[in-house]
C-alpha cells in the first residue's frame, strides 16, 4: 500500500531533487576525507619542520613504521586479537546476562523491588574501582579483564532492558490474556518481541562500555593487548607506540560498532 511507485518517467523536478540529494551526500563525504587528510598532513609537516617535538607528539610516518614493525615481529595481530576477543566476550556476555537477569526481575516483582536499591548503588559505583579486586580473585589475565568489562556493562543492561519490559503496552498484554496466555506466553509472545529493539540497543551501548572495561583492564593487568601497548609505550616514553595503538583502537572500535549496527539491521528487519 505504501510502497514507492516504480519510478520510470521522472519529472525534471524530481531529477533535480535526486541530483541535489546526491550532490549533498558526495560533498559531505569529501569534506570528511579532507578533514582526515589535513589533520595527518599538518601533523607530519609540523613534526618534520620541528615546530612540534615529535618525541612527545610522535608523527604519522613513524606511527606507520611502528605498525609495520609490530606486524613484522608478529605482535600486531596478537595484541589486536586479544583486545577484540575480550571486548566481544565482554559486551555479548553483558547483554545476554543483563537480559536474563532482567527477565528474572520482570517475572518476580518482589525480587525486583528487593534488589532495586542495590542496583541503583551498583549503577552509580564506578565499576573500575573493582578492577584490583577482580585481579586478586581471578588472576592477572584475560578472565579478570573480561569480568571488568562485564561489570561495567551488565548493570546498565539490566536497568535498560527491565525498563523496556516494564513499559510494554498493558493493552497488548491484555490482548494475549484474552486468549488465555500464561505468564510465560505473555513473555514470549509480547514482552520479548516488543523489546527486541531495546535489547539490541543495549548491545550497541555495551560495545562502547566494554571497550572502556577492556582497556582499563589491560592497563591494570599489563600483559598483552592494545591497552598494554598504550600503557607500556607511555611508561618507556615510546609515544610512537602509544599513538599507533590508539589509532588501531579507533579503527577496531569503529569496525565493531558497524558490525553491531549491521546485526541490528538483520535482526530487526521484520520491524519495517
Amino acid at each position, binding site marked *: *500500500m505504501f510502497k514507492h511507485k516504480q519510478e520510470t518517467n521522472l519529472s525534471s523536478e524530481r531529477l533535480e531533487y535526486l541530483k541535489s540529494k546526491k550532490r549533498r551526500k558526495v560533498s559531505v563525504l569529501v569534506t570528511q576525507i579532507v578533514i582526515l587528510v589535513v589533520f595527518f598532513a599538518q601533523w607530519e609537516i609540523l613534526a618534520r619542520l620541528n615546530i612540534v617535538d615529535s618525541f612527545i607528539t610522535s608523527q604519522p610516518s613513524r606511527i606507520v613504521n611502528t605498525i609495520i614493525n609490530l606486524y613484522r615481529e608478529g605482535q600486531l595481530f596478537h595484541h589486536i586479537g586479544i583486545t577484540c576477543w575480550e571486548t566481544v566476550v565482554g559486551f555479548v556476555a553483558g547483554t545476554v546476562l543483563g537480559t536474563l537477569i532482567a527477565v528474572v526481575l520482570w517475572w518476580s516483582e518482589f525480587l525486583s523491588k528487593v534488589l532495586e536499591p542495590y542496583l541503583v548503588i551498583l549503577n552509580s559505583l564506578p565499576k573500575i574501582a573493582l578492577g584490583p579486586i577482580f585481579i586478586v580473585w581471578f588472576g592477572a589475565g584475560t578472565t579478570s579483564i573480561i569480568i571488568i568489562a562485564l561489570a561495567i556493562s551488565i548493570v546498565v543492561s539490566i536497568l535498560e532492558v527491565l525498563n523496556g519490559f516494564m513499559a510494554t503496552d498493558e*493493552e497488548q498484554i491484555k*490482548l494475549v490474556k484474552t486468549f488465555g496466555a500464561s505468564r510465560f506466553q505473555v513473555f514470549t509472545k509480547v514482552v520479548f*518481541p516488543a523489546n527486541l529493539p531495546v535489547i539490541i540497543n543495549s548491545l550497541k551501548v555495551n560495545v562502547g562500555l566494554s571497550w572502556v572495561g577492556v582497556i582499563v583492564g589491560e592497563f591494570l593487568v599489563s600483559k598483552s593487548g592494545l591497552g598494554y601497548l598504550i600503557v607500556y609505550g607511555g611508561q618507556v616514553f615510546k609515544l610512537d607506540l602509544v599513538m599507533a595503538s590508539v589509532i588501531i583502537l579507533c579503527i577496531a572500535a569503529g569496525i565493531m560498532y558497524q558490525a553491531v549496527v549491521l546485526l541490528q539491521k538483520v535482526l530487526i528487519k521484520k520491524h519495517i
Partner: protein
Amino acid sequence: MSYIVEIKNIGMNYQSPNGEIPAIADISMNISKGEFICIVGPSGCGKSTLLSIIAGLVKPSCGNIVINGGRSGECLQQVGYMLQKDFLFEWSTILENVMLGLDIKKALTPENREYVYKLLDTYGLSEFKDKYPSQLSGGMRQRAAMIRTLALRPEILLLDEAFSALDYQTRLAVTEDIYYIIKKENKTAIMVTHDIAESISMADRIFVLTGRPSSIRSEHNILLSCNDVRTPFNSREAPEFRHYFNLIWKELDVHV
C-alpha cells in the same frame, strides 16, 4: 427461554493504596443468542470493567456470570475480546497475527488453520496475509483484528470501544464492515461505547448505565423501520433514530 449470557448482580470494587473505589454497584442483564447489545454510559462508569468481568479477566467482588450454562473464566474460548485498538503485532505478519489466539491455545490444527484461511479469504485479506500490519490501511487492520478474534470461534464477542481509535470516515466504514461480519457469523455481541449514534445504529438493545458506581439506568429495545436490510448506515436514516438519540442523550445527563 434460556439466555446465552446471564449477568447476575455483579458488583465490583477496586482496591488501591488510597482506598476502595466502587466501580460497579449492581448490574444484572440477560442476553439471548444472536443479540447485539450496546452499553453506553458516562465516561469512567465502569463499562470496560464490566466487559473484563464478562471475559473472565477480572474477578467481580460479588455476583456471577453464566455463559452458555457455565461460569465465565472457565470458558474463555467462548468469548472473543476486541480492544480499543487493533494491537496487531508489528513484528509479525498478518497471518501470524490472526493465528495468535490459536497459537496461544495450542490449537493450530489443520482444521482450525483451514477455518482462518477461509475467514481471510471471505473478508478480503488473503492476499495480504504475508504483509506486516504497517502495510495495511486502518480498515484492513481492524478486519484482521476481527479475524484474529473469530479464529477461536467464540460464541460471544465483546467490543470495548473497538472503533474509537479510528478517524470518523474510517470508523463509519469499519462499523459497517464489522456489523456485517458479526451478523453473517451469527455471533452474539456486547459492545461498550460512548458514541450514542453508533450504539443506536448497531444495537438491538441498549443499556444505559449511571455514573460510578454504576448500575443500569434504563434499557431500550431499538426498533427501527429501515427500508432495506438493517445496516448501521441504514439505521441512521430511520425516522426513529433521532427519537432514540434524544432519549439516551437526556438519560446520560451530560454536564460539561
